């Protein structure tokens, strides 16, 4: 199996194990059919700080808030603040369900370099090793453009992860593959070229990734893959 048609979970594992994520690429999106093992794989591999978006989610659930501790009010970090402070991965599940209240904060969390100002006045800058990995079901064209354009790599989870396949066993796994897309919106999306895709390409090149593999990691598929390779060619 070449890098060009490698399964999404193997690509992600390779990017993590070789240090491409988070040292060269630190904003990644995995989108695809439900029950493919996206969130589980990310959490198990990266030991991430995890948050699941929903429409009614308050900001405090993301960055933290003032809490009564031992009779006094103290600031307690939320998952995003902890990830920034400790230099770990912030995993955001169901990114497409982002509540309006947290939108601008998410922009800041996904900036490069990332940094937020807490309500206490403390400025938190991302420690080395910080990154944001998001998961969701629908295709990324549902995301607001400022969020979409901050994501470096897009992986499409259109097959079961290795963990799920092992858990099911070979016979059931093949059946599960057959029903994977049932009753789900088709994942028809072509990544457009953006400024960020070229910045991400540069980062991947500096990590020693060749252009063909980089195109795959960046999420270009079909004609978009050959078009992007043509666009970035040196001559």
């Amino acid at each position, binding site marked *: 199996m070449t890098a060009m048609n490698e399964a999404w979970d193997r690509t992600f594992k390779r990017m993590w194990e070789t240090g491409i994520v988070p040292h060269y690429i630190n904003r990644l999106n995995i989108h695809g059919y439900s029950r493919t093992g996206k969130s589980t794989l990310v959490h198990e591999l990266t030991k991430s700080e995890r948050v699941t978006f929903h429409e009614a989610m308050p900001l405090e659930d993301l960055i933290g808030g003032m809490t009564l501790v031992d009779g006094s009010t103290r600031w307690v970090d939320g998952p995003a603040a902890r990830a920034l402070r400790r230099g770990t991965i912030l995993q955001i599940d169901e990114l497409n369900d982002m509540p309006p209240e947290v939108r601008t904060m998410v922009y800041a969390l996904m900036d490069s370099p990332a940094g937020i100002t807490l309500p206490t006045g403390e400025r938190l800058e991302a420690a080395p090793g910080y990154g944001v990995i998001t998961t969701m079901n629908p295709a990324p064209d549902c995301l607001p453009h400022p969020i979409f354009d901050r994501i470096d790599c897009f992986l499409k989870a259109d097959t079961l992860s290795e963990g799920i396949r092992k858990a099911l066993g070979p016979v059931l796994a093949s059946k599960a593959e057959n029903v994977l897309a049932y009753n789900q919106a088709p994942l028809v999306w072509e990544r457009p070229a953006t400024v960020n895709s070229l910045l991400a390409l540069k980062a991947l090149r500096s990590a020693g990734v060749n252009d063909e593999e980089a195109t795959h990691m960046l999420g270009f598929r079909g004609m978009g893959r050959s078009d992007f390779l*043509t*666009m970035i060619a*040196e001559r």
Partner: protein
Amino acid sequence: MIRTNRNSVLVAGVPRSRGTPVHIEHDDDTAQTMIVGSKVTEVHTPQRPFERIHEFMHMKHTNSPKMERAFRRVEWIVGQIVEDCRLHMLHWPWKIRHTPKLIIADVRRHLDEERGRIDNARKLNPKLAGSWQDFAPRVRQLAICEGAGFIADPFEPYYFADGSQAHLSHKILKLIREGHEKVAAEMLQMAFFGALIPVRPSGKGGMRIRGDILSASDGESLYDGWGIDIDARSGKRETVYFDDEPVNPPMDIIELPHEIRINDAKVGRRRTTMGPRLHRPSLRKVILPQRIFTKRARIEPGGTILIDASGSMGGWENVSKWLEEAPFSTVAYYAGHGARGQLFVYARKGRRAAQFAEPDGGDNTVDGPAINWLMKERAPRIMVTDRGFCGAADSEAQVLRLATLEAAGEIEVRDYSHQSD
């Protein structure tokens, strides 16, 4: 199905100075780039990487006004082929051996499909071998191979119809590689279409060898002037050289003194379709013939005979015989010497020179200019040659050109190596 790609990655690679074209995606084989002036307005692509890359190169590098100027004297398809070859050889997006594997695979797919089509066409219709439809895609394939870093051999057996076409392809690609697209295009035009397209003040084309044949009305020569550089300051014309061989080398035309009247060159009355007098006996026929007039004219109409007097020709014995058969013919012979040549007009209008003048050299060299001269002379035209043209950069093209003119009925070729009549 047709759809507009509003987030086109391909178009994102086009410099702003070239415009912001609309990208129309097709599910069939439609592939085209529309350029208005110097701006790209639209690009149409199929769902195949190679064809998309090809249109991408057009978007980035095709200079439409420059093409119009360089190719104004050639058929549109000739200019297209030369431009396609130029793009692939000089503007392939990747350096040698850096083309991504995904792209290499699709280039091979395209080459195999096209090769299959043209080989099949040749099998089904053997007469196509060596024609423009057979030659053009093959030479473009060589250019594609060069750009993509494949090894291709134009001399592979049966790839081209014959060795002279293989040599011609090599020369054409070398001309294009070195920036002489105009010369390459005009060489192809001469070889496969017999003549350059004259440029009229209105910008419309003129003469064609096939189909409607019109005469050029602007006085501009249909043949001379190609393969010639004009110095922008002095306006002086200089011959283009290619690999030390001249393209369209200069030829001196020498009219020998026609002192001797040819015996059988009689002038009398003959029936024609127009004239000052009616041929009264024809009026008695039940069905009037077409020729019912008489006029004073040559008994036997003339024509033109041109003889290749290069070293391979042999003796002059046949010339006298031909003059007996067609006493009013214009008879001339030519030969080359170094980078130039001479053409001697031995006989014209029923009179001939007292003796043959020996040419300075015994080379071919000026086969092209000699054919140019012949095409300006009166029909029927006969050329006596063994087709062994050499000594000029366009010799192979002239061999093909002669075959094209022969197929069109413009010139009858007699091979003196077989001592034919």
